[in-house]
């Protein structure tokens, strides 16, 4: 019934001469949340960079809404409806909170998200709208980064390690918001170090190990031991 939104076929990617992804293939259906797990350096962020066009040195095929976008550049891909919330947040330090959010909507795609919708979701950001983005706490900065991603009204949002460097209580707050963030039938790929949390928030998962898919499917279909074996490569 639901359509394939994103399809990745035999994706290989390099940094210079170092090959980092070794032929990944998977599909993501409209409205699904895919958890991407794997240890540090497995290639999760690299995969997201390939999908959103930040990494050009790659082969294989990435299609989005039945269009092949493998060779598209990042600034065109965001206009097609893929937003990345990057690892480490990457807010613009010279811009205020509100300016960061406005810039997220720069491509002018229509949809449910606007400044006021973001401020409804994260009221604290409205209070701090004129503050320099770097003056906020880590959790608030992550809210800005998420809001900035949503502002482009994407059909697919890529969330890279939302919990990076945050206190457990703040992580819990952010994950409690997740259903609201990816409500409206938004499709998402969620990269997360905390496997239990990742699997609890998703319908599908992929485990990546040294640039290859070591396991994938519905979380319920596997035991904890199977998943941790795929994760650690044992």
């Amino acid at each position, binding site marked *: 019934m639901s359509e394939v939104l994103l399809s990745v076929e035999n994706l290989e990617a390099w940094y210079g001469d170092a090959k980092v992804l070794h032929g990944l293939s998977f599909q993501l259906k409209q409205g699904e949340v895919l958890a991407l797990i794997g240890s540090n350096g497995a290639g999760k962020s690299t995969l997201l960079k390939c999908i959103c066009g930040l990494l050009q040195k790659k082969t294989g095929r990435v299609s989005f809404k039945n269009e092949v976008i493998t060779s598209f550049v990042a*600034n065109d891909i965001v206009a097609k409806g893929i937003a990345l919330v990057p690892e480490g947040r990457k807010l*613009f330090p010279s811009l205020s909170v509100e300016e960061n959010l406005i810039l997220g909507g*720069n491509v002018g795609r229509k949809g449910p998200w606007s400044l006021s919708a973001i401020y409804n979701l994260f009221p604290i950001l409205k209070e701090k709208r004129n503050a320099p983005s770097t003056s906020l706490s880590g959790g608030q900065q992550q809210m800005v980064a998420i809001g900035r991603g949503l502002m482009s009204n994407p059909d697919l949002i890529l969330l890279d390690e939302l919990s990076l460097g945050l206190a457990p209580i703040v992580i819990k707050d952010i994950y409690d918001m997740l259903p609201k963030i990816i409500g409206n039938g938004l499709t998402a790929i969620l990269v997360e170090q905390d496997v239990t949390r990742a699997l609890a928030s998703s319908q599908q998962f992929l485990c990546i190990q040294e640039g290859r898919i070591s396991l994938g499917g519905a979380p319920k279909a596997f035991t904890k031991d199977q998943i941790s074996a795929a994760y650690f490569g044992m």
Partner: protein
Amino acid sequence: MIWVNIIIQGILVGGLYALFAAGLSLIFGVMRLVNIAHGDFIVAAAFLAWVVVQATGLNPLFSLIVVVPLAMAFGYALQKWILNRTLGKDILPPLLVTFGLSIILQNGLLAVFTADSRKLNAGVVETASFPLLPDVAIGYLPLLQFIVAVAVIWGLQYLFYNTALGRAFRATSDDSETALLMGLDQRKVYAWAMALCMGVVAIAGVFLGVRSNFDPFMGPGRLIFGFEAVIIGGLGNLWGTLIGGVILGVSQAIGAQINPGWQVLAGHLVFLLVLAIRPKGLFPRIEG
């Protein structure tokens, strides 16, 4: 009273130096590019205005209506087709290419216009003045030049902090990769920045040509004054650039009063002094 006069004249000349410097400051701020040919572009703009004035009979100050858009279009194209190709991790290629452009411009201007010096004639406004205090008269032209400099700096500052283009400049300067994720193509953003820079260069060129004689080899000297104003004021701060220009203008005026040969030297000395005491300039940008 003679010193009051000297200082006021120095301040007004400082406006011209700030105009020389504003474009340099803008380009360095947005893309960390140091344009060695900046002074030559100012001189080229003066020649362009001269051509427009010859062809149309316009007052040079009104020729800006034609010269500014032409210069902006040129700046956009220059960045898009030449300078963007030089930008990257290595800082040497843009320096070499703009150095090359400087030589090409000087020799190109020499070939077309000869080494004769020329002047833009703006009419009575050049010599008219009004008395401010006894013994202190303010010339309309220097005053206009200063007001235009303040207006240009204010305009750039406004654009930087209150418009979508300014947001794009700041975001791209912060992190061009993340800016791509916002749909901002840095090559286009840089082209707009260079267009703006050349618009200011055109204004600076016309005021240069109205104030004094110019010839094809005047560029490097204007570049030095621009550099000094930027560094004295502090990198990445446009109001600082205006103050830097004023400090340079006043230093030169005082130096010239002590000994006519010391005009430029006095400016260099104050520049060195500021560098020695505050290496980041007087008003560096506060980093977040």
